[in-house]
């Protein structure tokens, strides 16, 4: 799966979970930029990403993610 496809799928998840239909997924996007990105919605988002791509993150991968770009690259790495 190419990075653009991954980005599209994650953008759909973000729009649904954080209830922002026009959210644009950018690399630097973080919890500080999205009103509903609190710990509850964060857990929902991670679970949805794992389910969508049929992957399971390691703890060190999860805690290294500081923004949407880190999440995108982590998914890409696991799909290679």
């Amino acid at each position: 799966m190419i990075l653009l496809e991954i980005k599209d799928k994650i953008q759909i998840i973000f729009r649904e979970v954080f209830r922002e239909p026009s959210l644009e997924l950018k690399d630097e996007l973080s919890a500080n930029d999205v009103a509903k990105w609190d710990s509850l919605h964060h857990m929902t988002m991670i679970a949805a990403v794992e389910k969508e791509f049929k992957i399971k993150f390691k703890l060190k991968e999860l805690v290294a993610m500081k923004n949407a770009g880190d999440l995108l690259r982590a998914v890409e790495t696991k799909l290679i």
Partner: protein
Amino acid sequence: MKTNISIRKATEKDIPFLIETIIAAEKSGTETIAYCSIFSLGKEEFTELLKNILEEDIQGQELCVSDFLIAEEKGISVGACCGWIEGENGTSSSLKANILHYFLGEEKIAEAQGIMKIADALHIEREADALQLESIYIRTEYRGKGILQVLYDTFITEAKKRKHDLKKAQIQLMKTNETALKAYDKLGFEIICEKHSDNPEILRILPSHHKVMMQKLV
């Protein structure tokens, strides 16, 4: 009375005492442990969960061994406190959410969503760049000896080495924990934010329905 107290960074060997510390701080003078009521965990399951999380030592959130300082008297651990600069290692709420997702799993988290939403009424956002103090505990028989002041002073000294322009130290606690409120007031902390919920379900989940954030300018 402070002369016999020494302060050191916690290590993996301190995990049993840190578990005692975190549980005492979580109970906040009651018998309610939020993690247990939210995620339907027995005390032993919660202790095991804490042990597993502490062993991972993920900095920047309240369940991290190396973010704890231990107060010792004659080689005995008598108090502890966790502290980190918010944002230095990422947002603490996201870090903790990742940790809980990893250890509890999707199903347990999904089951707890409803209860978490009720508990969220008392959520107070942590302020970036402020020193966050959490899980503060002094064994009952060692209280009133100035140990908290020594722990606090050490945190400030250490935090300022990493962040020269550190301006604030903040603590979140339940307003019903009067002993702790008085102790932090004595240290110079003032209440700057309060959250209250009238939902009767809250007391089934949390030790109180009234939470405060206290702050001290450093």
